[in-house]
């Protein structure tokens, strides 16, 4: 007599969903106190659908198999000096951004999902969040281990954790995640699981990692794709939470829509740095930012929003602006970093002629008209020994914290500025999207720790720039920053490769 094998759904129901109980001795609401203040109405947690029904034994088994493979490759990579196989030392600068900007967000995700993984009173959603929490811890740790070898041979990776907390442009990703973690539990899930994981991280992890493979970076492509294998679970959690909230109560619809509007806008601002990594920092190109955007945002995101239309959810606000920005984003951002290359923790450079041609081809409507002439000028100045750096400190958007570098989309020669007055103080924004976000929650966004304001207030050492960079940020000034031409990174690479 052999017992009937439980199918996945039944097994999961008994092994997970049935573990909770109704309290008799304490107020259960006190054990799960944060579910109500956002105005979201949950009438029945048992309606939560678990798309993946992973019990811990399977989790350990499959994750261990992934880790075993991953670390075997890390070991082989460092034993064989895998860094010598990359296409070009410029490539490593994308990794510096990755480790300083993205990896600490994985840690924020671990903490954020631990928080909701404790706070949801529905066991199905709670356990899914717990698994994501531990996955996110996995991601930062595997990223640190993947970069560990690069850190031994290249500058700019060594103090990534402190940099994330202090460096001016890294307040963009940091404030993004702080914002999500500071929000209520349901907004956190809409922000990170849905907007970020389901739609936007594809743009970072899929084409960029494919790009890593194309540039000979075995370690990064391996951790990237291995992390993505967890991401499929996370993405589905994102879609599930949206459907669950919308099905629970009609009053949730406008709240969710508002969060979608906020977080897609915040997400596109955050990804502007990825656009430049794709278009300018991968020496061997896979696809342009615009192409990636069309594939993963417009096409995939479009299908998603068509599917959600039946709940009364529409495309995120300012999607029309976002669509236009794909033509401009990477060029405006890389140009800004080129200008501030002395204050960045990675190297910048002028694209090669071949790369300029590639950009012209990929951006036929905008590159030659607006951006190529700038690079031709920069080239000329560099040839004359006049590589320039902008000395003035940039003004930052009070919401996304990106310097005011974006233009009006209908007039790409005109920088975009918006402002609001709150309690007698004036606040500046890069866009209507960022202004709306501030206006909706001014008491939150007046708290922004704006790096440039902090420098001006004397909270970051200085006042000389080199002291701020060296003592407060922890850069090795002269090694980590400035143009790649003449950098120690470039010098070592040439020695390894035996070229003059």
């Amino acid at each position, binding site marked *: 007599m052999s017992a009937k094998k439980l199918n996945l759904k039944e097994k999961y129901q008994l092994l997970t969903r049935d*573990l909770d109980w109704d309290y008799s001795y304490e107020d259960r609401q006190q054990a799960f106190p944060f579910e109500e203040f956002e105005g979201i109405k949950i009438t029945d947690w048992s309606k939560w659908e678990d798309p993946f029904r992973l019990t811990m034994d399977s989790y350990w088994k499959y994750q261990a198999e992934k880790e075993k493979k991953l670390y075997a490759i890390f070991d082989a990579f460092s034993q064989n000096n895998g860094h010598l196989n990359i296409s070009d030392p410029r490539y490593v600068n994308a990794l510096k951004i990755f480790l300083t900007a993205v990896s600490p967000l994985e840690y924020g995700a671990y903490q954020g999902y631990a928080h909701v993984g404790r706070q949801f009173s529905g066991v199905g959603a709670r356990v899914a969040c717990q698994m994501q929490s531990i996955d996110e811890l996995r991601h930062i740790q595997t990223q640190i281990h993947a970069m560990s070898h690069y850190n031994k041979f290249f500058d700019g990776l060594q103090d990534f954790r402190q940099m994330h907390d202090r460096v001016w442009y890294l307040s963009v990703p940091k404030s993004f995640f702080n914002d999500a973690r500071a929000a209520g539990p349901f907004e956190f899930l809409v922000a990170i699981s849905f907007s970020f994981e389901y739609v936007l991280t594809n743009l970072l992890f899929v084409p960029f990692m494919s790009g890593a493979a194309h540039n000979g970076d075995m370690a990064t492509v391996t951790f990237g794709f291995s992390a993505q294998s967890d991401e499929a679970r996370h993405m589905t959690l994102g879609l599930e939470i949206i459907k669950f909230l919308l099905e629970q109560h009609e009053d949730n619809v406008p709240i969710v829509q508002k969060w979608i509007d906020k977080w897609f806008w915040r997400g596109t601002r955050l990804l502007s740095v990825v656009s430049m990594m794709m278009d300018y920092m991968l020496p061997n190109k896979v696809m342009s930012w615009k192409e990636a955007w069309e594939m993963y945002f417009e096409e995939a995101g479009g299908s998603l929003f068509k599917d959600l239309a039946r709940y009364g959810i529409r495309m995120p606000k300012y999607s029309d602006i976002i669509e236009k920005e794909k033509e401009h984003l990477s060029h405006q951002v890389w140009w800004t970093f080129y200008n501030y290359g002395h204050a960045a923790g990675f190297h910048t450079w002028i694209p090669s002629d071949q790369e300029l041609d590639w950009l012209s081809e990929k951006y036929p409507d905008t590159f030659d008209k607006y951006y190529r002439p700038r690079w031709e000028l920069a080239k000329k100045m560099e040839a004359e020994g006049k590589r320039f750096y902008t000395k003035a400190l940039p003004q930052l958007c009070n919401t996304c914290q990106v310097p005011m570098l974006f233009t009006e989309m209908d007039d790409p020669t005109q920088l975009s500025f918006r402002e609001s007055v709150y309690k007698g103080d004036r606040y500046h924004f890069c866009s209507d999207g960022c202004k709306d976000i501030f206006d909706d929650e001014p008491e939150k966004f007046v708290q922004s720790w704006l790096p440039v304001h902090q420098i001006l207030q004397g909270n970051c050492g200085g006042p000389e720039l080199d002291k701020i960079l060296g003592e407060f940020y922890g850069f090795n000034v002269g090694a980590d920053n400035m143009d790649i031409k003449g950098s120690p990174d470039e010098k070592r690479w040439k020695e390894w490769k035996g070229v003059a």
Partner: protein
Amino acid sequence: MTLEIKTANLEPIRNTYANIERRFGDKPASRYQEATYDLASKEFFHYRPLWQPQKELNDPTRTVIEMEDWYSFKDPRQFYYGAYVQQRSKMQEVAENNYAFFEKRNLDRLISDDIKQQLIHYLLPLRHVEQGANLNNMYAAAYGTATAITQACLYNAMDRLGIAQYLSRIGLILDAHSGAVLADAKGCWMQDSAWQGVRAYVEKMTVTEDWFEVWVAQNVVLDTLVYDLYYYQFDAWLSDNGAQDVAMLTEFMQVWMKENDRWVDSVMKIVCAESTHNREQIQRWVSTWKDKCVTALQPLASELLGGDALAQAVSVLDKRLAKAGLYK
């Protein structure tokens, strides 16, 4: 081209990350070190949490325990994620084989109905206790300070979910996968007088605010007593009463307990050695929760194992507390 590479050129320019170098010097670091130290953000948070505006997002004042360096809580197992899942994967493989063997050979037939009832009444409801342990360790993982201790709490939380699931599977084995036995066991957890003290204790922990206090109430007090009662004493009783095969199904918990004890003992030792303030605070917590726990477990322990079972478990707890430098 690779032929031209001189090995002398391939000397690393540094051995590890700057934060690790500041702590341990410029020498090759372990994967545990690089994956653990200084990962949690400490400064310049942008916004106060809407759900707790009196605190920062990461805030060491979520407990009254004070540490000069919260990274002092080095995990003696040196678990980072990869090491952790690979260790658990080995254990689950053994467990999987045990469960498969048990079911294939229908070993449940060798267990008397009386003992089956014992298991349903007294062992299976533990899955809800483990669920409470999952919540409590998640709590410390979410609100604790610094990766050294919070990652270990997260691993513990996931372990407890896993253990709750293994206990549930014992229930499924006992009734040919109908799920009825699990419902009976839940009925005991909810109504049976022997369980109500424990249930009240678990519910109380989940509404306690200080994460370190919760950690002590769960991982030190309750776990020491419950694991001794069940995985030493009840295990021995089952063996003496012809149900030694049940041990195949609880082996995971036994192996886990030994490993987990090393971590819990180490945390206790470090926190108590840090300062008088900490030692006295921990001692106060231990006293309060131990009293509660002994009262809560008394009816369960005597029904399950008789007279001095609980006293024996308490002596195990006292030994651990003495080892940590408490009650001296």
